[in-house]
C-alpha cells in the first residue's frame, strides 16, 4: 500500500540537527514531533509543516513523500 511517508529523519541528518533542537526551534512539543517522525501521525497542520520547513530551510516535498512504507 502506497502512503505518505515522513522523511523528517533524513532532513534532520542533512541539517545536522536533533529532534530536540527542532522542537525548540519550531515550538512544537517533542512528543508531537516524535509522532510525526515515527509515521504515527494521521494528519499534519499546514502551520506545523510551515514551521518545520522554515526551521529546516526546505520545501514540504523534502520532508514528505509518497511511496511504500519502509518496514
Amino acid at each position: 500500500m502506497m502512503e505518505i511517508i515522513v522523511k523528517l529523519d533524513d532532513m534532520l541528518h542533512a541539517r545536522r540537527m536533533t529532534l530536540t533542537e527542532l522542537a525548540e526551534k519550531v515550538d512544537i512539543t517533542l512528543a508531537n514531533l516524535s509522532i510525526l517522525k515515527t509515521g504515527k501521525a494521521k494528519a499534519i497542520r499546514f502551520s506545523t509543516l510551515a514551521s518545520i520547513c522554515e526551521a529546516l530551510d526546505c520545501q514540504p516535498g523534502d520532508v514528505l513523500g509518497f511511496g511504500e512504507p519502509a518496514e
Partner: protein
Amino acid sequence: MANKHHLFLITGWALNAAMLISLALTAVLVLAFGVCALAGAGLIHLPIPLEDLKDIKDVPLTLVFLAGAVACASGVFLLALLTLMLLMTGRIVKSADQDPFVEDNARRLMQIGWLLVAMQAVGLGAGMIMALFPKPVRDHVQAGFDFSPVGLLAVLLIFVLAQIFRRGAQMRDELEGTV
C-alpha cells in the same frame, strides 16, 4: 472553567443522592411487594380498617392485594431501571470533566436510551395488567401509565445524542493524531 467544574460536581452529587433515594425506595417496594404477595396468598392477615373499603366490599380482598403486588413489582422494575440510568449518567458526568468525547460515553448513552425504552415497556405493561382489575380496585391501587409521546421523543433524542457522541469520539481520535 471553574463554574463548569462546579456544575459537574453538583450534578454528580445530585445523581448520587438520587441513586441512594432510588435504592431506598426499591427496598421499601420489595418489602411492600412481599407483604402484598403474602397477604394475597392468605398467608398473613393484614388488619385493614373497613370504612376505607366501603366501595370495594364486593371485591375479594385477595384481588386488592394482587393489584398491590403488581403495582409494587412494576415499581421495583422501574426503580431498578432508573437506578441503572442514574449510574450511567453519573459516569458520563464524571468523564465530562476530562474528556467526554470517548466511545464509552456513546455506548453509555445508547444504554440509557434502551433503559428508557425498557421503562416505557414496564410502565405500559403494568398499565395493561392493571386494566384487567375491576374499577373499584383500580381506584385504590394505581400503577403504570399510558403510552407517552414525550417519553418516545426522549428516547429518540438520547439515541441521536449517542450518535453525536460517537462522531465526537471519532473526531477526537483524528485530532489526537494531528500534529
